[in-house]
């Protein structure tokens, strides 16, 4: 049995949580216990805080959601600085945290009634089309202004240093997940000067949440847990002296031959010869009533909370989606002592591997296929859900509704590539459903339509970690060959790596991917 103290997992069958010194932070003036090494959002969650902010127009509650600084639900004022994403900031003793929206605060917000009223009294677009008389118009404009804006104006001057560094390198790798580490290793080992940047404080990308063992052949690290694979790759990477690793570094733009990035509070102006974009994927969400309630999460948010910070996400969860992510997450929840009420799946059969499904079924979790979630129940956060059966045309069958008791809902319905940087860099993109959404056109060596920009991993098409590693290898080696490095050895390895990938995808699960890739392969081929 997993021991839980103050909302935190103390003993876990696989993971070990090393918590730092106990500190006290203040949330809207109220003292809250936290441990060094925890983010503010995680510490608040552990202490039972569920509402982190309010939505702008309807004042609907917003809570912990993505855990990786991508959504804006956890923005608060921290020590006088507004709009701080509290899931990315670590606790410090005495830290003053205030919610920014709602009156008097986000948790108890009198403006919560707006949810029911505002569409009646001030329908969307009223600011343009109503109050056209000069006096009313000017009154409206000045009133509107007092409602606008998130977060107070800064009360103190930001204390961070604003440093600046210019870096020239042969290969810039944007993203330190499995594909990125693999690209950096394979470019670095042939002597290229590599810079690898990642926005997170640790390498490994999504592997750090994957406590399960991988499948496939031994050559591809099957039987090893995801977290262990991340460690192995990182060790290999750190052994190469010509690879510079910058963590907590976010690339924000590819401006022709220059890449802009921020390393903590330092601005980087990077001038790379080749760029490998390995930015991974976003979690998709699903449309159902109340899907914005605190307690409706993506699988990633729950995994971060539970596996990285060791915080119990809730007592009883409903999982939507029976792909591998949904199945593995269910198992991880059970491991952490959290009940799984059910798994629902819209398709007529389970999406993930049979072994995973069998494992959760053995532990007594019902899997409802041809079912979907209709709505989440609750006012401030999730207190239940309604599911229903679907007919052949994907419509809910009246009368088949079933109420599920749960205090959180996990939406694990797949991923979409994080394609923004590629789009901005001018790469030709295409919508390919088999690959999860908008993906770049690429050669078989993973070079996009913009010369010198490569892709690998989920951003090139949603697949999984093993093929991400193989694709990173192809991109990394091709980049060094294009730079005139590596000689015959690199060319030989490039051919071998292409063959490896082909073999790996030969199985039944690769069929869909191959079909998707055929749709976005660039005819232009650079023969080596």
């Amino acid at each position: 049995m997993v021991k839980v103290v103050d909302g935190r997992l103390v003993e876990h069958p696989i993971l070990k949580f090393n918590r730092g010194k106990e500190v006290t932070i203040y949330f809207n003036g109220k003292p809250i216990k936290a441990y060094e090494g925890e983010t503010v959002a995680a510490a608040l969650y552990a202490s039972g805080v569920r509402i982190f902010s309010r939505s702008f127009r309807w004042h609907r509650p917003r809570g912990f959601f993505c855990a990786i600084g991508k959504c804006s639900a956890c923005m608060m004022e921290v020590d006088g600085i507004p709009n701080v994403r509290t899931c990315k900031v670590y606790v410090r003793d005495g830290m003053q945290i205030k919610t920014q929206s709602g009156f008097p605060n986000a948790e108890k917000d009198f403006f919560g009634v707006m949810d029911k009223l505002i569409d009646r009294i001030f329908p969307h677009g009223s600011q343009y089309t109503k109050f056209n008389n000069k006096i009313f118009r000017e009154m409206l404009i000045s009133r509107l202004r007092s409602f606008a804006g998130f977060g107070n104006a800064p009360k103190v001057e930001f204390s961070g240093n604003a440093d600046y560094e210019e870096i020239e390198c042969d290969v810039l790798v944007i993203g330190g997940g499995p594909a990125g580490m693999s690209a950096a290793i394979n470019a670095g080992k042939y002597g290229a000067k590599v810079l690898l940047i990642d926005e997170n404080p640790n390498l490994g990308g999504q592997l750090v949440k994957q406590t399960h063992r991988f499948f496939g052949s031994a050559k591809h690290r099957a039987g090893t847990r995801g977290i262990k694979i991340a460690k192995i790759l990182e060790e290999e990477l750190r052994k190469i002296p010509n690879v510079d690793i910058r963590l907590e570094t976010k690339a924000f733009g590819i401006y022709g031959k220059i890449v802009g990035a921020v390393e903590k509070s330092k601005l980087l102006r990077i001038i790379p010869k080749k760029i490998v974009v390995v930015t991974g994927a976003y979690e998709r969400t699903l449309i159902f009533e109340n899907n914005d309630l605190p307690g409706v999460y993506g699988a990633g948010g729950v995994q971060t909370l539970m596996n990285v910070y060791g915080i119990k996400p809730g007592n009883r969860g409903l999982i939507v989606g029976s792909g591998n992510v949904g199945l593995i997450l269910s198992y991880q929840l059970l491991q952490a002592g959290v009940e799984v009420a059910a798994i629902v799946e819209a398709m007529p059969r389970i999406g993930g591997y049979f072994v995973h499904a069998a494992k959760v079924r053995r532990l007594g979790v019902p899997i409802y296929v041809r079912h979907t979630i209709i709505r989440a129940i609750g006012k401030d956060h999730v207190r239940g859900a309604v599911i229903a059966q679907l007919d052949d045309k994907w419509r809910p069958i009246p009368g088949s509704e079933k109420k599920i008791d749960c205090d959180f809902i996990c939406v694990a319905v797949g991923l979409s590539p994080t394609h923004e940087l590629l789009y901005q860099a001018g790469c030709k993109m295409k919508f390919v459903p088999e690959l999860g959404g908008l993906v770049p056109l690429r050669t078989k060596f993973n070079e996009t339509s913009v010369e010198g920009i490569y892709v690998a991993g989920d951003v090139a098409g949603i697949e999984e970690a093993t093929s991400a590693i193989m694709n990173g290898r192809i991109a990394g080696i091709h980049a060094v060959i294009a730079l005139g490095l590596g000689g015959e050895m690199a060319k030989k390895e490039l051919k071998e790596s292409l063959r490896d990938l082909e073999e790996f995808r030969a199985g039944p699960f690769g069929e869909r991917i191959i079909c998707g890739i055929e749709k976005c392969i660039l005819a232009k081929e650079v023969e080596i």
Partner: protein
Amino acid sequence: MRVAIIGAGIAGLATAYFLAKEGIKVEVFEQKFLLHGASGRNSGGITAQFDDEELIKLAIRNEKLYDKLQSEIGFNFLLRKDGYLKLANSIEELGRIELQRKFGLKVKIMEAEEVRNIFEDINTEAFKFASFYPKGAIVFPWAVIWGLAKGCKDLGVKIYDFTKVEIVAEDGKVKGVKSGEFHEADVVVNAAGAWSKEINDKLGIKEEKRIIREEICVTESIKPYIDPYILHASEGLFLSQSMRGEIVGGIVGKSDGGMTSSLDFLIRYAKLVTRLVPKLKGLAVLRQWAGIYDETLDGKPKMCFSEIKGLYQLNGFGRKGMSIGLACAEIASKEILKFTQEE
């Protein structure tokens, strides 16, 4: 009588609106989408603090037209008159204050310290003098274009977007415009902003003009607390806070170039803006973009018929389009009406 207008920016749409009100049949042609040009990319500052009699008069008329058109069309441009604050390192760089006062502008000259009464967080060491024009304003440029387009459509004006046209002229006289299909017109208005030179070049009309690229960025939103539009004339820095609370700012353009954004702009802007308002340090930039505009050598707009009969030039607004565009369009529409009556 038919009028074809090239360019669905503030000048083109306002001209179309004024003409349609007089019962003229008008068609507007936009090469891309509405807001693609400078009217959709500027920062919405409106002032009359100019150094030329004609420009000051146009700007004063323009202020009145904003009020009139919003009520008439029934669409709010989210215009707020919180003043225009011009900063400079020397009193000369503030421009011709006496001239401005002569035409009735209540411009207030201040020393740096006094400016803190208008905006407390300003760093008084970053400039020496300021001229404050209380009737200066900030407008949401998109709403201006949406509103004018609505006004035009209500009056039966056809607006064609994604329609790049060429002017058809014969024997020194315009016949209409063509984009695949031919649209007959007695008058063609070149209100294509930064693209007006390209149109004139094709017709062999020579003009001295510069195409200037300017970059802007927007931060995340915070509670509105910067009221006036601020322009640091010596450094070319400008900023204001939008209705949604974002800090919108940029650097006055100097050179030409395309519409791509640059990292160098962002770095320079960040340095300048945090020197002027130190508390903006640490605020995240959400978006950046670039736009282009056309500027004449004397800085005054072109609004006149040109050597080809029936071709009206309405361009060369430089950075002043939002401040004088409506007034210029009003003059243009009157001259076009006169032309049609004479014909």
